[in-house]
């Protein structure tokens, strides 16, 4: 009997790979191209995966390395891939939760790649700082400061501070309704 083929496990990480790719590229077509390249690379280099280690960390490392080399090749295309969010913000939201999410997405898009990556790995995917440091090839302290700076920047962009936090959604709704063009 042979051990289970680690390739069989790849499919279970595809959703997370898409979410990570989407947070890096913020463009679903580019994100899926990135996931596809990563999947092919992982499949054909599966012998480099060490059984028993964290496969998701291994895949994310391939994905982000692929992203950064892709970015070097086609920097311009990726940079202005979606300007549509700003337009969507002018619409009156169906309810506050959606608005806050768009507000968040817009702010999120303004983080630099390094901050966004660190925040997603630690804050969304739940990797330990040490794991994220290994995956991104930097010191643990660097990851921590990137995550802190990302959160601080988001708070600033979303005009969140300790006192305003609870009222924020109303304030933003008001601001947007007021700023809607008169016709």
């Amino acid at each position: 009997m042979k051990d289970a083929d680690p390739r069989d496990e790849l499919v279970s990480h595809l959703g997370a790979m898409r979410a990570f790719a989407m947070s890096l590229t913020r463009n679903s077509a580019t994100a899926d191209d990135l996931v596809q390249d990563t999947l092919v690379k992982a499949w054909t280099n599966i012998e480099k995966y060490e059984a028993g280690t964290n496969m998701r960390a291994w895949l994310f490392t391939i994905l982000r390395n692929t992203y950064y080399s892709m970015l070097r090749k086609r920097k311009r295309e990726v940079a202005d891939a979606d300007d549509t969010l700003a337009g969507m913000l002018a619409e009156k939201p169906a309810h506050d939760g959606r608005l806050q999410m768009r507000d968040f997405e817009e702010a999120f898009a303004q983080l630099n790649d390094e901050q966004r990556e660190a925040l997603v790995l630690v804050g969304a995917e739940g990797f330990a700082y040490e794991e994220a440091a290994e995956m991104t090839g930097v010191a643990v302290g660097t990851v921590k400061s990137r995550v802190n700076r990302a959160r601080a920047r988001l708070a600033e962009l979303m005009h969140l501070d300790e006192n305003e936090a609870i009222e924020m959604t109303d304030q933003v709704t008001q601001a947007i309704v007021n700023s809607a063009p008169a016709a």
Partner: protein
Amino acid sequence: MQQKKPAASVQRQIDENLKRVYDDVLNQDLPERFSKLLNELKESQANDTSSRGGPEADE
């Protein structure tokens, strides 16, 4: 560190939004292209039982 750390309540709000955006994509149905790709990869593996060699060379 010159930037002050956001308050815990703000941090929680940020992380909740982050999780929501992330999980939104994570939980989407996989596009068909990925099941197709996996099938292609499996076939090329079956045709090449030496299990080495990539179907796509990097340019």
